[in-house]
């Protein structure tokens, strides 16, 4: 009984971590007033860039070291998702393009890049079969050695790869950053009313760029966690599924608070897989269960707008481009 519970929580967390990365990244981005609907695409690119980096290292190195096995995919993933975020911020901040349109185009592009590279990476090197990075993913999957000895407690708390702990730490840091620091206050001011922030001497463009860039990179780590830890260094086309949109749903569910996103992600991760753990469900009922995260998000969205508490609202200028000379 206790073991089952532990494995349910374990699976929920494992499902929740990619969502948490995505949600934290999107919260930081949205706090600057930019609704980045390209997050699903960015997460695909974050995943595939990690795969490409890891593959090249495994392919060309005769004696892989633990440090480089972790560092190379990590850095290439950050580069890939950072580049994607830069495309988005250049178009929406500098060129003031419509955010929804740019985001959707970015998602199309990113999913395409992910599936294209994932499908043809091996062909470029004259190999066949499917990608399987066992050496690299081993280091990503490594958890605390004492986890097994502690039974269910160890399973719940200590049996994840390092990226999972990183996700929680980043979310907590982001929460503190937004709530307690001067820069966080400035960022929130930019998202609420860029004209006022500008008048107060805050460099609006710089904040918007940095928020989108850092947010995109964090979200990309979600893709990296998925391909390296969850699937163990393999790539399946469209395997990441609609998790990127789920991450955007969590942002709403968590009311734009990164710390809340931690719990929200685990709950959503649980809802995503709970159908497996309930015995005797028909396949139709399982599909209904998969609907719950979205329905719950809609309910939260509606309730917050009805209660209309000021601290629970989306950033006021979310989705609007800022042009200084416009009244």
């Amino acid at each position: 009984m206790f073991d089952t519970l532990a494995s349910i929580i374990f699976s929920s967390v494992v499902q929740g971590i990619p969502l948490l990365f995505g949600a934290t990244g999107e919260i930081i981005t949205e706090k600057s007033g930019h609704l980045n609907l390209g997050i699903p695409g960015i997460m695909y690119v974050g995943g595939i860039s990690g795969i490409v980096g890891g593959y090249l290292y495994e392919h060309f190195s005769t004696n892989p070291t633990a440090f480089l096995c972790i560092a190379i995919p990590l850095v290439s993933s950050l580069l890939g998702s950072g580049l994607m975020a830069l495309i988005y911020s250049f178009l929406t901040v500098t060129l003031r393009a419509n955010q929804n349109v740019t985001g959707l185009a970015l998602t199309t592009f990113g999913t395409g890049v992910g599936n294209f590279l994932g499908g043809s990476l091996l062909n470029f090197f004259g190999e066949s079969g499917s990608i399987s990075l066992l050496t690299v993913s081993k280091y990503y999957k490594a958890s605390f050695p004492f986890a097994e000895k502690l039974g269910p407690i160890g399973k719940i708390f200590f049996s994840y790869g390092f990226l999972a702990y990183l996700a929680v730490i980043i979310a907590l840091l982001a929460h503190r950053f937004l709530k307690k620091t001067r820069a966080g206050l400035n960022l929130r001011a930019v998202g609420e009313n860029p004209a006022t922030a500008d008048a107060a001497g805050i460099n609006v463009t710089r904040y918007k760029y940095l928020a989108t860039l850092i947010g995109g990179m964090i979200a990309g780590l979600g893709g990296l966690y998925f391909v390296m830890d969850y699937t163990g260094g393999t790539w399946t086309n469209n395997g990441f599924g609609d998790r990127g949109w789920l991450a955007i749903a969590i942002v709403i569910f968590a009311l734009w608070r990164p710390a809340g996103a931690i719990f929200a992600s685990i709950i959503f991760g649980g809802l995503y897989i709970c159908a497996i753990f309930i015995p005797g469900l028909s396949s139709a009922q399982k599909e209904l269960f998969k609907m719950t995260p979205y329905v719950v998000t809609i309910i939260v969205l509606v309730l917050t707008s009805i209660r209309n508490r000021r601290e629970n609202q989306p950033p006021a200028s979310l989705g609007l481009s800022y042009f200084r000379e416009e009244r």
Partner: protein
Amino acid sequence: MQKTDKTVREPLVHITKRPDMPLFPALLIRLCAILLALIICALIIFWLTGLNPLAVYKAMFEGSFSSTRKIWNFLQNTAMLLCIALAVTPAFRMRFWNLGAEGQVLVGGLASAAVMFYVRDSWPSWLLILVMLISALAAGIVWAGVPALFKANFGTNETLFTLMMNYVAIQLVTFFIAVWVPTGSGVLGVLNQQSQNGWLPAVFNQRYGLNVLIVGILTVVMFIYLRYSKHGYEISVVGESENTARYIGVNVKGVIIRTVVLSGAVAGLAGFLLMAGAAHTVTAELAGGNGFTAVLVSWLAKFNPLTMILTSMLIVFLQKGSGEIAQAFRLSSNISEIMTGIILFFIIGCEFFIRYRINFRKKAEEEK
């Protein structure tokens, strides 16, 4: 030299808003952007395959126009994309960001499939088609109307709401397929394959003929509705400024709900046409991402239904063409998404140069 020069630095570029650009230079800028994007795509393809880019573009052209069947497929895909773009347009002109077209199309298709599934051959074809159409429209209206009601009454963020509704719709479709197909294969299969009861009849001897015809008429009607009717005017005013609209006595809530209901109904119609006029079944892939692509089509055309004919043709041409390239040169077919993405980035980016003017810093001598 005055001392204040040190503190006051003029930036290198200074951006100002342009008055409306005349049509011709605006078109020229867009054309340049597309050309530039095509050159970059050609470079990428050359780098990946080492093939002559011109041969690649020839293959691309053949993807849409090399046979009558391909031309009709091209027309069908364009018509469907155009129909969904028409659906989102009235809402967009009102600045109601309906990103839920994918879901609205799906429930439309699902509703007509449900009618066909339960009726099978027991009704005459015309009655079946009529009931299918009505239920598809109703489903689309419900799916768009719920977010609209909350938007109008409580100001609920419609972008996020409609976005989430897409995934509810997708799960709803997989749920019903699981209910209808007890084997658990998850594939419904073509309905009424033998009798073709409830299938849209062929027009001009083409199975897609009627779809193309209906969407063509709808485009013109939508253009007139948005441009010349009182409703169309109200939509534009609400989109420009809700306060102005309220001041001149427009019922803002009513306009929002009415317009989004129209939007949902057209999306439901698209679902019906896809189901009854082409697929004759329903899958979660029925809309195939066109609900999102339609947003781009509508935006690229500046929400003008007639221009949308061109933009939807452009997008479908690109998709078909890059699919053909992928097939001909044995690349993964996902190259088409990459190329579409690149071209979209350029078109999206070039709008800046149409709306704004870049003034470079003048030399100090001129300042005096």
